């Protein structure tokens, strides 16, 4: 998912508390996908209520958001809208991968291969319309705002950061850098102990901050060339040049100056190249949002999570108490007066 340029980028490890008082635009689809793939039982079965509805995402939103809100972060979820037309082949491919994984998961479970089962179960995670609707409902009840992007959520989030309405983007993908977000935080919503794939080892995952300008300077390229590198490697909208990884792409872009020159030199073509470049540079975004953090509506959260989805009322109430202490207080802070 997203562009695979991570190995080129420098990052610094931070604490969640370093983001205190920051408005963090959270890539909603990316985050919900993380919740769905990580928050699972040992054999890979996601959390479910008694009706069989998946609840991993709801658990993630309640507990993990409460943790980061408690650390002083002001989160806003940014949901994807209509994907650009050139993304459809990617979407189709993802669906195939997922269906495939689902079949293999069932197979592995039957054969009692727990590790395999978990792996395929993760790959079959899917953010569907019900999951989005339920997530929005829970966020509203918790007092956390969300924004509906006209197109890609990361593009909207990057716009909000550039405009000054948000301070950081939280996503596991690097795409928001392509959309020009100055600061991207990874691992924010998945920090804590995490199991390494295929190994029985747990590592402590900490949030990391990627600074766009620092990285561009370090790599000796400009924003447009970063997009060109991504196009060489392959993005959600194109396949990339065969056999070209991030390091080769960097070399090529530095040598030839732009993707157009590289393609010409190699006698290659990228479908919709102009359209995709334009999309990264000025994607559809909206100003139609309001960022307001409210006091959680505890009874709404409890009736939704405990009434409809069998969450433990005791645990939900405790999380709500913590959330209430941090969110929607009418106490202003001194930062407002600088």
């Amino acid at each position: 998912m997203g562009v695979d340029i991570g190995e080129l980028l420098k990052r610094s490890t931070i604490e969640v508390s370093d983001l205190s008082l920051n408005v963090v635009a959270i890539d909603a689809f990316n985050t919900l996908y993380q919740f769905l793939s990580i928050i699972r039982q040992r054999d890979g079965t996601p959390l479910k209520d008694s009706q069989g509805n998946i609840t991993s995402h709801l658990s993630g939103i309640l507990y993990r958001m409460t943790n980061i809100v408690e650390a002083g972060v002001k989160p806003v979820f940014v949901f994807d809208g209509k994907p650009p037309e050139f993304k459809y082949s990617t979407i189709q491919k993802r669906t195939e991968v997922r269906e495939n994984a689902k079949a293999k998961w069932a197979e592995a479970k039957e054969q009692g291969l727990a590790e395999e089962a978990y792996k395929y179960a993760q790959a079959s995670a899917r953010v569907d319309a019900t999951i989005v609707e339920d997530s929005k409902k829970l966020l509203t009840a918790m007092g956390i705002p969300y924004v509906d992007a006209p197109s890609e959520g990361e593009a909207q989030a990057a716009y909000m950061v550039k405009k000054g309405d948000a301070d950081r983007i939280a996503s596991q993908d690097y795409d928001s850098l392509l959309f020009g977000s100055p600061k991207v935080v990874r691992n924010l919503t998945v920090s804590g102990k995490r199991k390494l794939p295929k190994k029985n080892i747990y590592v402590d995952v900490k949030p990391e901050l990627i600074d766009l300008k620092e990285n561009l300077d370090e790599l000796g390229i400009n924003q447009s060339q970063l997009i060109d590198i991504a196009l060489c490697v392959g993005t959600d909208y194109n396949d990339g040049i065969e056999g070209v990884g991030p390091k080769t792409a960097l070399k090529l872009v530095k040598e030839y100056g732009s993707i157009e020159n590289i393609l010409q030199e190699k006698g290659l073509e990228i479908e919709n190249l102009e359209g995709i470049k334009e999309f990264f540079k000025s994607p559809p975004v909206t100003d139609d949002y309001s960022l307001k953090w409210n006091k959680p509506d505890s009874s709404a959260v409890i009736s939704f999570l405990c009434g409809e989805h069998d969450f433990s009322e005791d645990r939900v109430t405790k999380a709500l108490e913590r959330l209430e202490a941090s969110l929607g207080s009418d106490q202003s802070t001194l930062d407002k007066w600088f």
Partner: protein
Amino acid sequence: MFKATIDADILKTAIETLSVLVDEARFRISPEGIVVRAVDPANVAMVSFDLNSSAFDEFNADDSEIGMDLSKINDIFSVAGRDEKVVMELDEMSQKMSLHLGGLSYTLALLDPSTIRAEPRIPQLELPAEVVLNGKDLQRAVKAAEKISDHMLLGIDEDVFYMEAEGDTDRVRLDMTRDSLIDLKSGEARSLFSLDYLSDIVKPASRSNEVTVELGKDFPVKIGFAIANGAGKVGYLLAPRIESD
């Protein structure tokens, strides 16, 4: 180098002005005295603290910065008798402070200042109104308000400084006219404050006969007073609560 002698009582009350907001603080020491700027963890209130070298019987210092756990210091002073002197000496090598007090010798491990929250910037605020009053009057109003609410209005209505609290069913108000105040500079002022913070701040302020309160409309309040018999000063800045409609 830092070595100083001071009345235990003066130091104790001075430290209390900090410990009502923070548990740890960075002390900037120079030949002129000791300066602390600290902000509470929630960023709602800050304190600026200046204790001149003249507050001390003896004061020898180079420029340095140390971090101290205030609750430990308060513990030490809880056993101090009246009119006792405390002698403080910094051992820079071991980063320990020794305190001699009424025959007791404490060695206090210091905190690495870099692990304590950085000094806040001080907002430049033009506050239109100002009253000067006895700290006891301020504390009396806050105590009355605490009985019925968790927040309190401070405001000025022409020649009257008022402090008002409203609970679910009850209301309490203290009006102070010009003649019961030490000074009044009238201006548009009305802001709501959390009593959690206000009561902490007025506790040390209540010892002062002359507390200056600067106010604006939905603006932070500045509360300032002298410490150490005039050889130091403390100023608080408290962010307002937003009045819900």
